[in-house]
């Protein structure tokens, strides 16, 4: 083979490519970075807008009113324990519904359903996920409360924390099911085959092999579900009797107030007019403080669940 003569015109710079093409490339790259930065700006804006206004509220409010057993912003009672108790009840009731149902559905879809059945049944879960929360709120008030909470559990109120909790639970089923199913689906078949190879039944494989192997993802799904339930607003605003004021109650068969319910009732109330006295506590500003609290709680729960999810990925 004859050696190729080296073209003296080819230098290192001519390999660098067309300068116009490179300029365009750099421009597009900058544009894409800018778009990504917008998302970061959003989270900064959330933190700043919550923290700024919440600090103004905190600097004016009498700290003792924050720990009272009454939530009544108009009268100057900002009993945070009332809201925490309500939120905790709703989230716990919701998880009592969504935990077993979501995990059961996930286990069935991942381990028992044939691919054909899976294809047919999965859209049901997805349809449930696309139902707006305001619809579930109506359902909780009109159907769950009279039919289940009043008839079967003996409550007498039109609005109950229980009905709201059940409604939020129904909303949370798809989230728990899909995160848990992803985790179980990711368990390698080799593990299942090894168990079958030594004579395990399908039930044993599901409970003692797949479930423990996917436990991080399952826990992540439950935590995410809890966080979602704590942040759910419309079901609570419609069905829990969330009004402008509420005492501290530990009975879920009575109406109650949650953090999200308090925010929405402050928002639609007429307290939004700023008072002229700049040093006075504006009841409306409690909204920012409660919002900040809710943000911190759900954000930390999400971070914890993210850590669990990452553990699944690391293993397989």
């Amino acid at each position, binding site marked *: 083979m004859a050696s190729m003569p080296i073209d003296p015109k080819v230098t290192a710079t001519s390999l660098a490519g067309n300068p116009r*093409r490179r300029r*365009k*490339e750099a421009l597009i*790259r900058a544009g*894409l*970075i800018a778009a990504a930065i*917008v*998302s970061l700006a*959003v*989270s900064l*804006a*959330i933190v700043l*807008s*919550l923290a*700024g206004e919440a600090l103004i509220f905190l600097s004016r409010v009498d700290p003792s009113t924050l720990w009272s057993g009454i939530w009544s912003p108009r009268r100057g009672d900002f009993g945070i324990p009332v809201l925490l108790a309500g939120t905790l009840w709703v989230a716990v009731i919701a998880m009592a519904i969504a935990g*077993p149902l979501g*995990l*059961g*559905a996930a*286990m*069935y879809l991942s*381990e028992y359903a044939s*691919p054909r059945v899976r294809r047919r049944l999965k859209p049901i*879960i997805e*349809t*449930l996920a*696309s*139902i*707006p*929360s*305001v*619809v*579930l*709120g*109506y359902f909780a008030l*009109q159907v769950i409360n009279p039919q289940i909470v009043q008839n079967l559990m003996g409550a007498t109120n039109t609005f109950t924390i229980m009905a709201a909790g059940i409604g939020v639970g*129904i909303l949370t089923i798809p989230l728990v099911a899909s995160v848990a199913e992803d985790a179980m*689906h990711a368990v390698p*078949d080799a593990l*299942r*085959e090894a168990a*079958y190879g030594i*004579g395990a039944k*399908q*039930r044993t494989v599901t*409970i003692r092999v797949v479930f423990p192997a996917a436990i991080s993802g399952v826990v992540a799904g439950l935590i995410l579900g809890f966080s*979602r339930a704590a*942040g759910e*607003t*419309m079901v609570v605003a*419609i069905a829990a009797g969330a009004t402008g004021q509420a005492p501290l109650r530990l009975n879920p068969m009575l109406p109650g107030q949650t953090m999200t319910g308090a925010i*929405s009732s402050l*928002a*639609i109330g007429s307290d939004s007019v700023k008072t002229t006295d700049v040093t006075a506590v504006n009841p409306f500003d409690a909204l*920012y403080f409660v*919002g900040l609290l*809710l*943000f911190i709680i*759900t954000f930390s729960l*999400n971070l914890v669940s993210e850590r669990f999810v990452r553990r699944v990925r690391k293993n397989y």
Partner: protein
Amino acid sequence: MSTLGASTTTTRASVEAALSGRKRDIGGKVFSALMMSALLLSLFILLILLVSVLQEAWPVLSTRGMDFVTSNTSQIDSRAGVRQGLVGSLILIGFVAVFAIPLGVAAAVYLQEYARDSRLNRLFITNIRNLAGVPSVVYGILGLVVFVQALRSITGPDVYGRSYISGGLTLAVLVMPIVILITMEALRAVPVAIREAAYGVGATRWEVVRSHVLPYAAPGVFTGAILSLARAFGETAPLLLVGAVTGYLSSPSGRTPAEILQGQYTALPTQIYAWSKLPGPGWQENTAAAIVVLLVAILVVNTLAIILRNRYERKW
């Protein structure tokens, strides 16, 4: 995955048959039935929800029909309709389509195709994942502080900032993390070989993305975009904070588009919320009828997503 799953199923069946002989595994059957009932119960709840809403809505829908869809808000239950809410919701998701989807897709392209796997970028992605889990009511507070209060002179000087612009931008900010995550997922699914082939013939990074990666990821991106529109369509809580009108709304004719966008607004889900709080059977029926309209709209959007996905998937 599906071939692996099938082979496990056959392995399992044959091993099980050989080992257990004719003895039937009753415990296993019960367990499997229990898992399936979790799934079926979710289906059952969905069914009850739809049936009870339809039942309640039937009197209004059968006697008024399209009149209900084309009437404006009113103080009288037999004359109130959802036209303004429906139009309002469509305008609001227009904002989502114009702002959130292009920005979200661009950010996803950067994070998935351009960014290196550095600590900073991982933090970025974690941040977006967490943003997707922030309760929607917190986005409402963000919208209240930023769009309604700080940018009032732009978003709606005559209506205290409580305009379509504020509501639409708030929803756009709310769904952007979801768009980013779904788009990243779709981009990740495009085989590396396709990128390498394009680089091999001398394409720049943007050329690879534009003419190879994005077309192949299109079905996933489309589905994500449409599902996020459906999500925005049903959101209620943030709109309550950024001032969607929950009572009577007059919509004078003869306004310019800019005046309309800077004017007062309402949305279908906020109308449902407001009506669910009004006393009397007439309003309850109206609420149910409005829910039917909302669910039909969301169903149409979701079906569109599925059709688009299927059509594009066949090409690939």
